[in-house]
Every structure is written in C-alpha cells, then in structure tokens.
C-alpha cells in the first residue's frame, strides 16, 4: 500500500524540497515531460509523489487525500481552522523562510509598536468615522495576532497582491504581508512594527491526522526512520 507525499509542483520551493529529501536518501523526481505533474520516489518503497501547488497542500492534508505534505507553516495556519487538529508538524525544513509582519508608513513617527498602533487606530476612528484599515491576505493569522495583543478599532481589508500599494491608493492605512528581506516595504516607504512578527514561516513537512493510515503506517515508519525524524506519538491515526 502507498503513502501519498505532496510536494510543491514548481519553483524554488520544489527544488529545495527535492534537495532536502535527497540529502536524507530519498530521491524525488518529476517524470514524463517538464509540464506533466507526475513524480517518482526512490529510496523507500511504497511512497507515491503527488505534485501540487503549495497553496493547495494544506487543504489536501486536511481532506486526508495526501498523508504527508510540504508547505509553508503560514499557509497551514492561515488556511486551516484549528490547524493542529488536522495536521501534525513532522519537521521544519530550514528553507522558504518568510516573516508575516505588520507595516505602516515611515512618516508615522509616533508608531513603533502594537501599543502605538492600537492608540493610533482609536484616534483614527474618532477622526475619520471608520476603523483603521489593514490590508492583507492573511486574515486569520493577523486577526488572531491583533486579538491576542488587544488591538481594537481596526478592520482587515482583503488584498491578494501588491498589498504595499494599498496605502498609496488610500484603500488601507497599514499592511500585513510576508517579507523575507523587507526590500519591497522600504521601496514603498513602509516600516515594520517592532516586536515579534505575526508569524515566522518556513517550509515544513506536515502529516495529515485525517488521512486513512491503516495501510500507510508501516510506510510512515520507514520514511521517518530514513529521514531521521522521530516518529511522534501524536502522528495519526488517532481517530
């Protein structure tokens, strides 16, 4: 019986995932033409490679259609409600680092921390009659972060791309976005708020808690031993 392993289907994330597994004696490869999303696994019997968009991997894990999957920890936390009930983290893979941060215009010399952002939001709402707008596509992560820190009088507005431009376009006053170097932020005259980021993301190997493990469990034991990661008791199936 086979264990299905989902890996990003293109780009640096795919290459780095292949490298990570190869360094641990598991050779993943694409088969067929360069455009065909089929793959093969050498090194352990019984593993089937499924190439998917990184953004679809959380959903496939939660649906139990794949047993293991590589994707950003930010995507799992953002996409899956109560994510820890659906998936378990097997290994942080040490690449694909990106921070989800909050940023405001550099001219906001009075705002450096969430404490300041909260106070500025209260004054903004009193002045303009609506809540201070934060543009993001990471609604769940940002809302939970702001709630945990007791920030009020803000609203999230959806931005699926070019988020840094929303402030110039007057559709938001602040942004929450992924950054690795901060260059795009600086180019758009924005500064990152001090303190811990909303989330520090990296590529992570996840196991589905909801997949059918009845036959795949033995394969999982071989994979985890090959990869040199401890097989946690919290890995499925618990149902």
């Amino acid at each position: 019986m086979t264990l299905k392993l989902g890996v990003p289907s293109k780009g640096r994330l795919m290459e780095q995932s292949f490298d990570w597994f190869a360094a641990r004696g598991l050779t993943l490869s694409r088969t067929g033409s360069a455009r065909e999303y089929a793959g093969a696994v050498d090194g352990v019997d019984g593993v089937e490679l499924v190439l998917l968009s990184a953004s679809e991997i959380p959903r496939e894990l939660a649906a139990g259609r794949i047993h293991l999957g590589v994707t950003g920890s930010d995507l799992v936390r953002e996409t899956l409600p109560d994510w820890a009930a659906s998936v378990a983290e097997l290994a942080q893979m040490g690449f694909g680092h990106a921070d989800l941060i909050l940023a405001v215009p550099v001219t906001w010399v009075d705002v450096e921390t969430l404490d300041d952002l909260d106070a500025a939001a209260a004054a903004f709402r009193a002045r303009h009659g609506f809540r201070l707008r934060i543009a993001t596509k990471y609604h769940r992560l940002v809302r939970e972060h702001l709630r945990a820190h007791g920030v009020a009088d803000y609203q999230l507005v959806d931005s699926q791309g070019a988020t840094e431009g929303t402030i110039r376009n007057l559709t938001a006053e602040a942004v929450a976005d992924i950054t690795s170097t901060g260059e795009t932020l600086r180019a758009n005259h924005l500064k990152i708020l001090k303190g811990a980021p909303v989330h520090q993301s990296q590529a992570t190997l996840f196991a589905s808690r909801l997949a059918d493990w009845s036959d795949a469990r033995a394969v999982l034991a071989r994979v985890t031993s090959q990869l040199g990661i401890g097989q946690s008791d919290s890995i499925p199936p618990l149902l």
Partner: protein
Amino acid sequence: MSRAEDISAALLAQMLDAGAQRVTPDILQPAETLLDLYGEDIRARAYVTHDPALGEMMLRPDFTVPVVQAHMADGAEPARYAYSGAVFRKQSASRAREYLQVGYELFARDTAAQADAEVFALFARLLEGHALRPVTGDMGIVKAAVLGLSTTERRRAALLRHIWRPKRFRALLERMRGQGPLAADRAALVDRLRAAPVAELIAEAGPQLGLRGADEIAARVAALLEDASAAPIPDDQAQALEALLSLAAPARAALAQMRGMGWAAITPALDRLEARLAALDAKGINTETLPFEASFGRTNMEYYDGFVFGFLARDDLPPVATGGRYDALTAVLGQGRAIPAVGGVIRPDMLAALEDAQ
C-alpha cells in the same frame, strides 16, 4: 420538534406571560451596524454574506442589536420584549454553529434596580430545577473605579476602552505606573520624538503617504509628549483596582468588602448595587448567598456596562444563560437618543443537553 425546540417554546410562553411582547427579527441582518459595533471580532465569529442590492449581510449572531433597533425606531416606554430563534456563530471544532436562543429585554427609565431585579428573578425562576450556578457582577463598579484613578483624562479613557480585554488592560495599567516592557518602549519613543520638531521628524522619515495625515501624526506626538510628563498612577490605587477586579464573594459580603475599601469614586456605583440587592431581596432572591464576581462579564460581553449575570452548568462550558444592562449600546444605536435597557438570553440546546446527561 426537538427537545430544545420544546424547551424554547415553553420558555418563550413564560416570558410572554411575564408581560413581554413578542418580536421576530430577520435572520439576515445588515452587516455594517454589527461590524461597526464589534469590529473584526464579529467578522471572525459571524457568517457574512453578500446581497446584490443590500450589500454585506450577516446571519444574525444575536438578537439584542435588532431588538434594540426596533425599539429605538418605534417602541413605547416602558417596553418588554421576548423572542426565540436560531443564531449563527462560527465555532472551532465540535461546538454548534447554529443554536437556539430565547431572550427577554426590558427598556425602562428611572427604575434601574427594579428592572435589573425583574430580569434576573425571571431568569432564576425559568431556570429553576436545572442545577445551575448563578453568577452576578457589575461593570458599572469597574468603570467607576477606573474613572476614579488620579491620572489624566486621556489615560482613564485609554483604560476604559480596554476594560473588556483584561490582558491588554493590565499591560496598559502597568505602563501607566511606569513599569514593564511597554513603559520602556514608550520612554525610548518619547526620547526620539523630543530630538526635533515633529514636522522635521516626519520630513526626514520620507514622503507623506496615505490617509492618516501629518496633522494626525503631530497630534498624537503632542499627546505622547504630554503623557510623558504625567505622574505614574499611584501604587495604592493600582493595587486597590487589582483587588477590586479579583473580588469574588457572596453579594452582600462583596458589597461590605467594597464599602470597606473607603473609595469615594465607587460609592455611587456601590449605592446602585445596594439598591439592586434590595430589589432582588424583594423578588425573593437570597442575596446573602448570591455569588458576585467583580470581573464577571469582562470578556466577550462587550456591550454590557452595568449589572451582568450568568447561569452556568460547568465552568468549562459556555454559560446556559447570560444577560446584563447595556445603556450605552442604546445610545450608540439610537444616534443620540438612549434608553436604559437590561435583558438576557437562554440557550435551550444546552438545557436539553443537560437533561440528556442526567
């Protein structure tokens, strides 16, 4: 009909017998009012949908707001309303997304103590025989204590704004005592802001961007510099406030303890509590044993601003019934007009589940 629906119908009938008029708010409510009141918290909890003509709509997350709106539009005074029906909330894991609520709301002027007692005594009677633990509290006392702190108007307002977020409230109070990490961050920021006139600092930082203008930034910088020279909130007052917030005792004993603090600022609020306890006694509630917790209602009951109460089956479950006074909410929804109001809701599904468990 399910058992919960039977219970719901019976409770509603008793509320109508108690003199209430039945109201039936729509399931689909305009999202704007609710979003404006509760912000992102409600977006995370309520189902939002879109209507081509009416814009963003919400499956009603509670009845209170539409009942208040209906009353403000064309209600006589005093008025008693009862309602029952499903409410919809996004939940994690296994909790119900759609569940029944039966509620009672009383709008009346000049008789706050009697109105509070009427609602609580009605709920106590309706829930008799269910082995629930009642809890009462009073957000009015907490607010009076904050307003009584010897500090600036701006600091009192900042604390009041976060009264429903205990963690944030504590961090703010700590900063205003000149302690903790927020105070250190603030001191460093103020040092930088003192280095040059604000117009210069803004010009140096970069090009002006977005809707929040230089005048707004300058106004907050002025407020920060002014705040930096305010004296810390005195230790004895901060400690008295903490002691008040952690108070939990039978109502009469709690009243005596709070009187014993000798805190003039909360005396009027304590007088109101005493009047309420007398009105509860008159309704046959034993206030010698009735539990009082000063911080009850400080989380997720944001619109209550006076008397609050709950009936709990277990501490790890949501309360079977909750209620309280929400005078300020009627002012917000009445656009200037306001009427004192108190009410509460019961969750029949939880009563049915309790019966099953027995």
